[in-house]
């Protein structure tokens, strides 16, 4: 951490800033999508409560799949933080 040149410092700062922006923007889409899925599942359960377990299972799997774009941005943010 001691003795780094100005160029290295600028690169490190830009990588950290990029990681923060990557996480912030990458979390928007999965948040909206998972909320939408959960709302629709609520509607479905209210309409037919006897299918509640099936709907819950499908909802969890769908949320986990739609979460993956957020996970990709997490991986990229970790790469930016730790490999520069």
């Amino acid at each position, binding site marked *: 951490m001691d003795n780094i040149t100005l160029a290295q410092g600028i690169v490190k700062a830009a990588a950290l800033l990029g990681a923060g922006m990557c996480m912030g923007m990458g979390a928007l889409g999965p948040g909206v999508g998972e909320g939408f899925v959960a709302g629709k599942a609520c509607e479905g359960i209210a309409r037919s409560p006897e299918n509640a377990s099936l709907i819950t299972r499908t909802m*969890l*799997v769908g949320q*986990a*799949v739609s*979460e*993956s774009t957020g*996970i*990709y941005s*997490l*991986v990229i943010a*970790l790469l930016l933080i*730790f490999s520069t």
Partner: protein
Amino acid sequence: MAKKKSPILKIFILFILIETVLVFVSNGFNKELQIGFDNGKFVLRNIQSHYDLQEKITEEFQIDEHYRQTGETPEIYGSNKTYEFFKNIFGKATAIGTFQLLRMLFIVDIMLLFIALLIKKKLLKRPSQPQILFEMIYTALKQFVIETLGKERVHFTPYIMTLFLFIWVCNVVGMIPIPGFIEPTRNLNVPLGLGVFAVAIVHITALKVKGVWGHLKNYVNPVKNPLFLLDIIGELSKIVSISFRLFGNVLGGAIIILVVSSLVSYVVFPVGLNLFFGLFVGTIQAFVFTMLALTYIGVEISE
């Protein structure tokens, strides 16, 4: 009305107690907190840690890099001969990480084999409780396979069941609070290998079902399918998406557990976080991986 506690609740409470005690013993008191006498009073004080958070994360996730930065000699478990052996094979850059990964994979395999032998040894006609559990898992997955692939391809059930149990044990084994117990899926190589294997099985099945030309004409016939390059890239991106999803979930959970438990000085919070990221996310992700592998096979052989 005296309500009888269910066995699951009992196991749950027992687990929380054991985990709390083990977290205190293994991490808390010898690293960050200290009980002692200070000026004649009994105090519980916070030692000034000589690590900062960045170094701790590096030690946890890039252990070879940590030893290279600090310049300490790596203290390998057992003798130094093991370290020399792995250094000769894998090179200095990844020796300890590879050793830890291989050891954890070995432990997971031993656990699976042990449970399987234990269940197989006493198969009863009136099944015992563990037998019921495993028969339920097997029946549920068999039902999924029949729904997706049809009744004539039930023989995929052992593969699907092995995939599910292996990934699930890999995700859950990190909850055991012993130093050095990491999830093997935290390393990218394990999910990538599983993903490559799943996509290879998809194509081998399609070749078997539709014949060689019947399968390949979707990819190499420019007249019928002008955008065949995009299909090939799509096949590659299947591997990337299915493996990075598992890897990112497990790694992100591990980093969040480390950061939050270092913020609260390893007191009680890690137990709940371990329950969420280890059990809940681990089970969901193992299920999603299995279902996606099954769906890829089903889509490819459907026509």
